[in-house]
């Protein structure tokens, strides 16, 4: 977005101005600038300098940390952003930018960037077992399959800490002192103080005493310090925080050939470009790493039968659910609006007050409460209303869908009632009266005259209600959890799952998380909702033209 200072000389800008302020001349502007400079109080200035100073301090800190942790690209972006912010707020003019920047900055990072990042993730195999890069995967595989080297020497051990990070300080049998941490392979240190064969002081580190060791026992027994840069050289580990032993992995990594060899069985696992080491028999070593898979996720969604089938039925149900939700709530809301839109009726205010309660009640609670009421064995609906019948409201595929629509009707009709009442009152009664004079019956008059007018004014709201219900995760997830589950599907999916709950379940529920596939689904949803909305908006435009 460009944000230059006002350019009132240009006629389009001036014409756009709703209140017809005459474009100020040069002297006028000069005067304005003088007045503005004079009117900025020193308090405001101090606040401004303090805020910007704090922001810049944070930016400098963030940039330093980012550069230190090998993120030069992001660090550079932070530096550029810091300079840009200071420039925008310290220069004269460019007033709109000063007001727009805070909101736009958040929008850019947490919404627009997120959308782009979703797109990026959809083209990777990011997920359980593919979380990190290849070096980490090699490291993790070797770490998981360690065995103590028989007859390896004993290293006398002390545990040291710096900035919360633990290190091993070991004395080898020859008496040399080495230090290393999970990230930093062993290296020799000078200047360590050794007492009775154990290190008691290392420059720059705090050596933990007995109590501290006990406190952090879990961390210490988890720690594995690489012996050298070569991952095959093994790691030092300890059981008792007193002595460390050399452990090596069953897997040997050959950096030249880029293969992992199981030293017990001799099987060679090679990188076949699938984001994991795999044996000639197709067996994969986990964890793997993140790679770009191109359109794989989309292709999987479209062709793999165990995904395609459920995905298709979920898509159909999503459309049905969104459409029926809007239709049922709209019909009931409109009906009630007509019923209560009669000046002769008393106490309308109280009816309205009670009717909006379901809307005021937090949505997630409604879904949970209804889930309890519709419980097959103990719920109020079966136990009291249906006299002990065990109707599987939430566990039968068809009834679960009916239940969701019913609960959504409860949740959504007050909104439709309110907006319909508003829209009805905006339509002059004379129209109906005129039609009735011409001999139309009341319902005819309503259907032919008021309803089209109502639809025109409510169409945008109906479309956004459709889009909202299309993504109404809270209701579906909390009421049925998407169930009853379809056991034949290759993914965790059930009869009432809509697309967005599918995304949630694929990405965050259960042991197997597939962020890549979930993002691909999200992109598909976006395209679907976007297309439907655009078509619907076009349609309503043509409706408007008709009238």
């Amino acid at each position, binding site marked *: 977005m*460009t944000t*230059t*200072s*006002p*350019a009132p000389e240009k006629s389009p800008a001036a014409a756009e101005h709703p209140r017809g302020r005459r474009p100020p001349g040069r002297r006028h502007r000069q005067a304005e600038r003088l007045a*503005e400079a004079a*009117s*900025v109080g020193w308090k*405001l200035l101090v606040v401004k300098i303090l805020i910007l100073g704090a922001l810049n301090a944070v930016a400098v800190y963030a940039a330093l940390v980012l550069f230190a*942790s090998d993120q030069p690209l992001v660090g550079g972006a932070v530096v550029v952003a810091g300079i840009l912010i200071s420039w925008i707020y310290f220069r004269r003019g460019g*007033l*709109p930018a000063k007001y*727009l920047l*805070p*909101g*736009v900055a*958040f*929008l850019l*990072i*947490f919404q627009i960037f*997120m959308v782009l*990042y*979703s797109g990026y*993730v959809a083209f990777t195999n990011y997920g359980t077992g593919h979380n990190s890069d290849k070096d980490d995967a090699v490291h993790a595989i070797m770490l998981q399959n360690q065995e103590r080297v028989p007859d390896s020497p004993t290293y006398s051990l002390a545990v040291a800490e710096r900035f919360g990070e633990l290190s091993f300080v070991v004395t080898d049998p020859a008496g040399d002192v080495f230090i290393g941490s999970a990230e930093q392979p062993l290296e020799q240190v000078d200047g360590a103080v050794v007492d009775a064969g154990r290190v008691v002081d290392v420059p720059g580190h705090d050596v933990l005493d007995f109590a501290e060791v006990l406190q952090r026992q879990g961390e210490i027994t988890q720690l594995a310090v690489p012996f050298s840069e070569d991952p095959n050289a093994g790691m030092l580990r300890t059981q008792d925080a007193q002595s460390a032993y050399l452990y090596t992995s069953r897997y040997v990594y050959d950096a030249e050939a880029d293969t992992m060899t199981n030293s017990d069985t001799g099987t060679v696992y090679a990188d076949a470009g699938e984001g994991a080491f795999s044996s000639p028999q197709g067996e994969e070593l986990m964890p793997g790493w993140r790679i770009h898979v191109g359109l794989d996720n989309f292709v999987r969604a479209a062709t793999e039968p165990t995904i395609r089938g459920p995905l298709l039925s979920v898509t159909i149900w999503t459309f049905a659910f969104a459409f029926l939700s809007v239709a049922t709530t709209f019909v009931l809301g409109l009906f*009630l609006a007509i019923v*209560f839109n*009669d000046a*002769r*009726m*008393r106490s309308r205010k109280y009816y309205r007050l009670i009717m*909006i309660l*379901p*809307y*005021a*009640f*937090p949505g*997630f*609670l409604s879904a*949970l*409460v209804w889930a*309890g*009421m519709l419980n097959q064995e103990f719920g109020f609906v079966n136990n*009291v209303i249906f006299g002990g019948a065990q109707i599987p409201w939430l566990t039968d595929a068809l009834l679960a869908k009916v239940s969701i629509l019913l609960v959504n009707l*409860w949740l959504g009709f*007050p909104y439709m009632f*309110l*907006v319909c009442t*508003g*829209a009805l009152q905006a339509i002059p009664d004379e129209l109906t009266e005129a039609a009735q004079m011409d001999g139309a019956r009341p319902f005819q008059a309503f259907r032919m005259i008021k309803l089209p007018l109502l639809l025109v004014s409510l169409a945008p709201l109906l479309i956004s209600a459709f889009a909202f219900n299309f993504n109404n*995760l809270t209701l579906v997830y*909390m009421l049925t959890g998407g169930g009853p589950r379809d056991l034949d599907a290759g993914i965790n999916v059930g009869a009432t799952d809509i697309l*967005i709950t599918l*995304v*949630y379940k694929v*990405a*965050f529920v259960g042991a197997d998380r597939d962020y890549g596939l*979930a993002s691909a689904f*999200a992109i598909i*949803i*976006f395209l679907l909702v976007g297309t439907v909305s655009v078509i619907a908006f076009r349609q309503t435009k043509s409706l408007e033209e008709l009238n």
Partner: protein
Amino acid sequence: MSIDTDSAPRPLRTGRPIRVWMRQTGWRHLVGAVIVVFSIFPLVYVFSASLNPGGTLITANSLFRNMSLDSYVELFDRPQQPYAAWFGNTLFIGLTSSAGSVLLGALAAYAFSRMRFTGRRVGLITLLLVQMFPQLLAMVAIFLLMLSIGEIFPAIGVNSQMGLILVYLGGALGVNTYLMYGFFNTIPQSIDEAARIDGAGHARIFFTIILPLVSPILAVVALLSFIATTNDFVVASVLLIDPDKQTLAVGLYQFISQETSQNWSIFAAGAVLAAIIPVALFLALQKYIIGGLTAGSVK
């Protein structure tokens, strides 16, 4: 519709015959009675369940037969489900992000309403378009990004309430700016000009003149975004991991999904307490909210 004349109140004062009254407004009251029962029943049920001491789902069905406040007491006495912490977190996150949203939205709306600059139209249209991709859809990306931010800056990464608030502020423009923009336009520009002639700068005009004048819409936007954030389950459940840091939506869902029918009355007590603030705010401000609703926001 069949009509039972005995059950309908007799319209004594109007002097209309019952038949006419029934045809004109009586049946409307019948519809009203049905819909009132439909609307209020689940709320009555949950309130009754919350008063049932040590109640499960099945005992909750006997409405108002046993009454005590035991469940409310027990609610605050469960270390595994720190309800008080959830409540406080929800309030903190809701208030902070709604205050932030109002500020960011008002700043932008002021610019769009009072200033003319290149890119203004494009900016307004972009805001509309960006909303077509709800934050919900980007939940995977949000989680992954916050995960990697958390590795370097734990204070704003995954499992940080600050991080969650930042994510919510990402949606601060959008609907809010539209609602506010419309309202800002109704404040005559001559007021700004008069103040400018008196020597007030733009910041002073914005904070001391415009903001008080537009306070009704600020209240509506604050309330709508408070309700939206306190109702959010998805982003909160993805980002907040420790039970102590979670919100009511996440905590109560996990509570009920773990022990569905055992602690029903405790859950009901939690639900009643959680609903009090939003419902009270809603009823108090309904006049304004209904105006805001018709301008295009959905629950």
